């Protein structure tokens, strides 16, 4: 997917200013940056939840900026938001079924089994309301739901925020597995940059709606100035 000269925001409030990114297929592209940089807006612009003032978002050769969210989903883009990423009032099973809305009932069963295979802890909660799960369990359910949609591209928004370090590490490892085993293209937005950059291929640094760095993830990780200034990473 390519994002070219994207200026976007909400209503008349502009958040992104002329931003361009390349998201190579079957790789993990990491976007890091401080709070309020516009990372979530970037993902929202791809999914059609934000107002695009100018610029293009091109996915598989098609310009998709401004399309309705469900159409982006049907094209194979799966969005796992940071908040509101599960349906709290629905049971875990209903959540998975909703995530697999576009699939036939046979496919839904298969994929749900796959997801449970990946996150076995969910099996205990199948009939509990998703809102009763802990933060980490909900994150796993959210990623599982993201997988139900047979994605070609996954947009993951701040997966590890609010999670205990052990669970965050596991979640990030699972993301790497998605790329390695399932060949899914991933656009990963993170505030806790270090772990994300460790598994990432390409990286972008987004500050106040501007791209300040683009290149290999390892480069950004090792750049002492940038990582100290923006990412709070002490000596790598």
């Amino acid at each position, binding site marked *: 997917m390519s994002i070219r000269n994207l200026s976007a925001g909400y*209503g008349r*409030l502009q958040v992104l200013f002329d931003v361009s990114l390349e998201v190579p297929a079957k790789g993990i592209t990491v976007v890091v940056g401080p709070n309020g940089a516009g990372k*979530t807006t970037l993902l929202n612009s791809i999914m059609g939840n934000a107002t695009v003032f100018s610029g293009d978002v091109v996915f598989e050769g098609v310009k998709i900026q401004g399309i309705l969210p469900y159409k982006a989903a049907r094209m194979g883009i799966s969005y796992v938001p940071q*908040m509101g990423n599960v349906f709290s009032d629905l049971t875990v099973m209903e959540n998975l079924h909703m995530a697999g809305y576009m699939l036939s009932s046979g496919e839904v069963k298969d994929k749900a089994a796959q997801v449970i295979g990946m996150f076995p802890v969910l099996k205990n909660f199948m009939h509990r309301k998703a809102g009763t799960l802990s933060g980490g369990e909900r994150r796993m359910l959210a990623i599982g739901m993201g997988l139900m949609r047979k994605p070609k591209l996954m947009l993951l928004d701040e997966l590890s925020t609010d999670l205990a370090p052990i669970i965050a590490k596991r979640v990030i490892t699972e993301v790497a597995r998605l790329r390695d085993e399932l060949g899914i293209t991933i656009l990963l937005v993170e505030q806790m940059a270090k772990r994300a950059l460790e598994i990432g291929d390409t990286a972008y640094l987004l500050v106040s709606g501007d791209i300040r760095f683009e290149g290999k993830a390892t480069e950004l990780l090792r750049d002492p100035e940038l990582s100290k200034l923006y990412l709070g990473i002490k000596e790598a």
Partner: protein
Amino acid sequence: MGHDGGQGHWIEKERCGGMNGADKSVSRTQDVWMKNEVVIGLVMVAVLTVIMLTLGLPLVLTILIDAAVFTIVTLSLNLEVGHTGISQFGRVLAVIAGAFVVGAVPGRVLAFLNGLPYGVSYADDAVNYKVVPAISDLLASSLPLSVGFLLFSFVLAAVAGAVVGWLTSRPAIRLKEAYLGISLLAFGDFFMWVGHNWEPLVGGTTAVFVPDPFRVVWGSRFQVIVIVAVIMAFLVYLYLEKLTRSPFGRTLHMVRDCDVAAAVCGKDIVSIRTQSLMIGSALAAVGGALYVIYAGTCTAIGFTRLTWTFWPWAYMMLGGIGSNRGVVLGVLMLTVARTLIITYRSTLFGFLLAWGIDPMWLEYTLMGLVIMLVVLFMPHGLVPAKVESILPAGRVRKAAQEQGFGATVG
């Protein structure tokens, strides 16, 4: 609605952040505003002249008094809704306050002073229809007394309206938007039913007569009433224009657009809203008082939310919420349209009569369609309110030029 996962709140905040970025629609809006109001104004004058020539002066006078009363009521609504952002769906309540107070009190005062029945029996229809004409005769004999009576009635109505406005502000502290609107609407309905059922107030189902202070100019009563009404409407318009352009008006707009910012600037939002409601309700009450004096009777059941809340909303939406001039034009346009429908209903829509259908109902269709069309295609009305900047226009223009935005801002 459901949890929007934190994204939903961005959409609500759009209003507060709305001043960011060059708002190119500002100058376009102002150009449209200038042209529209002049064109519409001229067209209305032309239409009224045509009506006068073809259908006679009395009809034009009826249109004018109708428009004058509703201009006052709708301008008061515009103050609360358009300038302060309060969901006032209970406009009828203030109108009722003025109307009932004038129906119940001034006549009784004069009755008391002249040895006539003034207590509960005043409103009893057997008594009322004799007492009130006696009072009117009394008024007709003395111009100072008539003028005094008229002024007394209006002052009383304004006070009653202000009280209602204060009472209305109490729910407005905690309730917002549609919740407030529904509550106020229900209150308005309720007081109509009180007036309809509690006979000592304004005669319940049989209504009371209102003493007529215009009898003193017997020959040209109607014309004088129209002139007085139009002058009053004009005064109300001038007053509100001055008010909304004053610092108080700017504060109202701040509270309307982003009350969080206003609070941060030290404005007492509750007090501002209360003042707006009190002024608006006082004015609406005066409108109600004018109406019952003109009509000569005060019939509780006639003060429906349809006529006194929804029609003003329709007038205001057509004219332009927040724009006083727009409101005046909106009232005039729709009053003319309604009157024409009623006058011409047999000729234009006579075919309906073949099925026994009274074309009078098309008035509702007109108002309903106006609201639907305005909401869909012209949400800012015919004469959109000027988008205000916090800084004076000159400074904005200068700053814009310095930053290279050219002539598109301010």
